[in-house]
């Protein structure tokens, strides 16, 4: 049960993402690919920022998304570093507070494809 299973199909005009992955549930996994190959979209699907219809995602035995259930982003124990700095322009007290909640797994959005 110590792994991440992800199946997503995303169909947008001019862009298709079709993944069926099983990743180790611990350690560091790097994801690379050329520009526009869907690295960011996959990470957004994992984080729950994008909702792939009929997708499936389970993390270490816990189902985050299937046909019936959908765990909203704020309930997923993850950390996400956006490609550009996404600090709140009005100060970062909340940021510090929410960090207290702790990270269990983290996603770092890759630089645009190199």
């Amino acid at each position, binding site marked *: 049960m110590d792994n991440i299973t992800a199946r997503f199909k995303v169909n947008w005009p001019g862009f298709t993402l079709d993944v069926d992955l099983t990743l180790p549930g611990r350690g560091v996994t790097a994801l690379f690919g050329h520009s526009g190959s869907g690295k960011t979209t996959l990470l957004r699907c994992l*984080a*729950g*920022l994008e909702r792939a219809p009929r997708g499936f995602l389970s993390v270490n035995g816990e189902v985050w998304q299937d046909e019936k259930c959908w765990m*909203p*982003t*704020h*309930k997923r124990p*993850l*950390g*996400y570093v*956006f490609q550009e700095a*996404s600090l*709140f*322009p*009005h*100060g970062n007290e*909340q*940021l510090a507070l*929410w*960090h207290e*909640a702790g990270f269990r797994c983290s996603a770092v959005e890759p630089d645009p494809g190199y």
Partner: protein
Amino acid sequence: MILTDSDLQAVWLTVRLAGIVTLILLMLGTPIAWWLARTKAWWKGPVGAVVALPLVLPPSVLGFYLLLAMGPNGPVGYITQTMGLGLLPFTFWGLVIASVFYSFPFMVQPLQNAFEAIGDRPLEAAATLRASPLDAFFTVAVPLSLPGFLTASILTFAHTVGEFGVVLMIGGNIPGITRVASVQIYDHVEALEYAQAHRLAAVMLVFSFLVLLSLYVWRPNPKKG
């Protein structure tokens, strides 16, 4: 004192009306503006158009329909009568409800613009940091759109102060209850009391100018928070 007692009464009534309407619209308009700024539903367009209607409708048209709705044979009138509240036309609260409709776009549109300007990213970042949508709204969206809240409140207040047609249709001209400043000026002119009309009109002119001046000169900076 340059204003007579009845003038002061009208000014106080106007300020009370505009203040209450602004508070009600802050509570009603904020969720609607938020929805309009975030939704991708197809009926966003129709809802936006309905919200903007009071901008282009003659106040007499709006007042006429509200009078019918709140009257003894209207749906609102039926509800208020069965609740034992009596009828709303020609009462202060009837005026409040009518003004809420009349000033709706002046609250919703600046707020909607402010919410749209935030974009998705700060809210996504908040969600990845465990903030529930309500949390994110109050700790991220509200501080970032504070200038929008100020603009919307000031515009709503000032627009309600400037209301005339709807007041005449719904409230009539009852001293201390529905006779607001703009109606009082109309009365003075009708009675050929030009000197009194001048004084009250000048007060309104100066007030309106100061309100707009504050909007154009003073821009709060959300980044200082």
